[in-house]
């Protein structure tokens, strides 16, 4: 029997050059109409956290402040994620158009693309796209300008409030929330900060209407999603797929036939073992049967030749290095998790020490200041739980 493949979509990367028409069309509509379209489309943040985009814009639009900002978060730092790079390379105008509409709605005159430091090579072509876009805005008499702000390589600066701190010339450390960015973001002004892919999706929604987007996906997870597929796969790369697929289908299409685990959502995501492939759905948490896993797009496939101890060790190494060091659970917790798994592996600590570490990971999840520290538990617990013998022997 011929396997039914996952549907490949071509919304984001479709080479459409009707920015002017789309902007004109959208600008003619009322702010409420546009926001309602976004809300009814079901679009949620594609960076991984999944906040409803329309609501975010609405909240910022309701702030009564003269100066506001739109920021495109292009600090794509999650291990195994490389889709924003591709979107910015091939369809930057869609991202820019999304920013311009957002600016119009919330009342911002200034936008920034916070570009990951390692993506320096993208800067020239991005500047060219911005220049072209500025000319278009001038023709349309739209008062909005976009600047590139280059990050310096810290993973934590992808966290929105750390990103603001970094842009303000301070140390990239997450802030206390509230206040949230829509009330007090960059320079303490109301700020909409959206992931690259999120902004690109708004372009499609403005063009085709919310229904087409909503028709894709399931329940709380609507539309398509760009995935970065890597690891033990014969076909690594970037794929736009419908949200809500089962992991089994994904593995059938992309793995090498020997997949023992898939890490969904990068180092800060979850590890799903083979036995749970068919019970796992890729999408935001909702009323799904089985487990639903959100992802910023990273899908790392591991086959049976891989040591999951090494995989976990690698992630922990990463967190130990990339924690900003500000809050106790993350700064010290990451070090203890790393040293702890090493000690168990070397036999310096009994295997029961893993239970203590699992408790620690849970404590980190509920006490850490930002998403980084909170999500270390995701990979740690899912790997230790499912591959315990590999941690010990």
């Amino acid at each position: 029997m011929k396997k039914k493949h996952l549907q490949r979509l071509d919304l984001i990367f479709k080479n459409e050059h009707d920015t002017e028409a789309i902007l004109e069309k959208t600008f003619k509509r009322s702010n409420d109409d546009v926001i309602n379209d976004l809300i009814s489309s079901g679009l949620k943040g594609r960076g991984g956290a999944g906040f409803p985009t329309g609501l975010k814009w609405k909240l910022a639009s309701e702030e009564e402040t003269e100066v506001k900002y739109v920021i495109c978060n292009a600090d794509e730092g999650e291990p195994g994620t490389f889709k924003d790079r591709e979107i910015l390379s091939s369809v930057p105008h869609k991202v820019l158009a999304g920013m311009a509409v957002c600016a119009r709605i919330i009342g911002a005159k200034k936008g920034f693309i916070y570009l990951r430091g390692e993506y320096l090579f993208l800067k020239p072509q991005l500047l060219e796209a911005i220049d072209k876009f500025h000319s278009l805005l001038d023709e349309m008499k739209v008062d909005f300008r976009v600047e590139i702000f280059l990050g310096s390589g810290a993973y934590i600066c992808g966290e929105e409030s750390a990103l603001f701190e970094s842009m303000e010339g301070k140390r990239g450390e997450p802030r206390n929330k509230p206040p949230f960015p829509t009330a007090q973001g960059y320079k303490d002004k109301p700020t909409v900060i959206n992931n690259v892919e999120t902004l690109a999706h708004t372009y499609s929604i403005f063009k085709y209407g919310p229904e087409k987007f909503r028709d894709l996906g399931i329940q709380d997870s609507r539309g398509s999603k760009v995935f970065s597929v890597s690891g033990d796969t014969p076909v690594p790369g970037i794929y736009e797929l419908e949200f809500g697929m089962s992991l089994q289908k994904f593995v059938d299409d992309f793995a090498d036939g020997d997949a023992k685990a898939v890490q969904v959502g990068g180092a800060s995501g979850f590890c799903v073992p083979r036995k749970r492939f068919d019970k796992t759905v890729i999408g935001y948490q909702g009323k799904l049967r089985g487990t639903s896993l959100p992802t910023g797009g990273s899908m790392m496939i591991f086959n049976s030749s891989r040591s999951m101890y090494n995989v976990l060790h690698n992630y922990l190494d990463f967190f130990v290095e990339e924690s900003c060091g500000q809050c106790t659970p993350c700064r010290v917790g990451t070090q203890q998790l790393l040293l702890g798994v090493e000690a168990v592996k070397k036999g310096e600590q009994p295997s029961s020490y893993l239970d203590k570490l699992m408790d620690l990971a849970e404590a980190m999840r509920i006490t850490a200041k930002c998403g980084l520290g909170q999500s270390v538990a995701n990979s740690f617990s899912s790997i230790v739980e499912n591959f315990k013998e590999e941690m010990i022997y």
Partner: protein
Amino acid sequence: MAEKINLKIDNIAVNIDEGSTILEAAQKINIRIPTLCYHEDLCVAGNCRVCMVEQVGSDRLIPSCAMPVSEGMEIMTNSLKVRSARKQVVELLVSEHRAECTRCYKNGKCELQDLSSEYIVGENGYIDLIPLKGYSIDNFSPSIIKDDSKCIRCQRCVRTCNELQNIGALSVAYKGEHMKISSFYEKPMYEVVCTNCGQCINRCPTGALTEKTYFDEVWSALNSEKKHVVVQTAPAVRIALGEALGMPVGEIVTGKLVAALRRLGFNSVLDTDFTADLTIIEEGNELLQRLKKVLVDGDTSVKLPLTTSCSPGWVKFIEHAFPEYLENVSTAKSPQQMFGALAKTFYAKKIGVEPENMVSISVMPCTAKKYEADRPEMRSSGYKDVDYVLTTRELALMIKQAGIDFSSLPDDEYDSIMGESSGAAVIFGATGGVMEAALRTAYEVVTGREVPFKNLNITAVRGMEDVKEATIKIENVLPEWSFLEGAELKTCVAHGLSNAKKVMEAVRDGKAEYHFIEIMACPGGCLGGGGQPIPTSLAIRKQRSKAIYEEDSLKPIRKSHENPEVIHIYEEFLKEPLGEKSHELLHTHYTKRNRY
């Protein structure tokens, strides 16, 4: 008026202003939530995660210090989830802290120690990170010791140095496992812009930042038969020492302090207040002389405004940050150093002790005084004028070591010759005190009348406001001061170095015209000094301030120029203010320093 919010904490209803935090709401109903990075003098950091509480219906815990209250909120401060998470956090902190408590200066006074005794971090803790880190101790400074192995990264010191003092000597460096509190290029504290104010020490919850102690040296001197040990006590010590010895905040313990010092074996128990009075005579005359040179002689080389020079933290600050204004700083030495110079000259001769056999000790509310005593300029007697400087805390420890029951000591009195003082000297310990003392004297010198304020209390320069200004109109002057007839003397008082910076920037930018500026490096003045008992807060500083002004009001002599011992030392030794002997012993100069 702010709107009121209703919430429940541990099932107790609270009604509190909108914008308050959960921590504040809990405090209102006397529920104590443990904190560590939180300090009421500083902005909220929310980084230690000790004060986490549970909000009913929410999966993750929330930091009570940083989370504003909202209507209908239900908070649990002692649920199983909260207790277990807090214990984990404390365990983690202990694992990155060199927990050699029995060897630590802060033993018994450490907030992490308190927390770990409350949350019983048992034997089965996490892996000790200390052996993996290769820490070294920075003990090059004469004032401050920085031991990173005891640091728990709460950043109170960083916030103190950057916000409260606006110095930036301490900042966060690196990230992740390497994150630490560091200085410019990781240089020792001695080589950076650190003013030695010690405010970071006052707020450090552990033993990571402490003063360099000298009580061992002082004990040896006291136990040496050959040595005559002279001690001076700063104004702000007598209203704070009690706190460190179990007495209430704001208790005046002058008499007990003197008695304790005698019991410890000091040969001469004298008072910095005496030289505080002397400072007023020298500095007051310097001000009048500068005014004369500018107003009458048109001498453009003379600089105004004149600023005070008693606070060594302020002096080092201006040397770093505004070196172009060093000529504006009064050349008068601080009371500590005037005392030191006179102790080994005038006083030594009086009591027939060879200066080389004299050990000069001071007890100060200050850590910068240790640095000041070490400055090469401070050897006018031909010896080190002040050999060792003890903080209020160190003296409290010595009193404990000696087994003295401080609170039951009978009151005693300072020795004479350099032990008498006026109320004007006592108020040196509070922000605005030097200004008030100077005005009490200068006004009278010029007009022949007392300052025109009820009971001599110049309330305009008192209090905890960031920057205070007062203008005094001078009328009906004595003939020799006719050039000041009708003049308005404009004064300014600032405390805390961030306020000092504001004032100096205003002066630099021509936005403020003052004749005389008093600046103290520490919040509240010396009473909030870096050597004072821990903890500190605005409420504590206000209590101490109240005690200082009470001590002033009780003094029979309230004006520096009426101190009989001061009058006597001019007659017998110094001859005249700003005279030859004064220049030799009581005045100094300053050094331009790097801005980083």
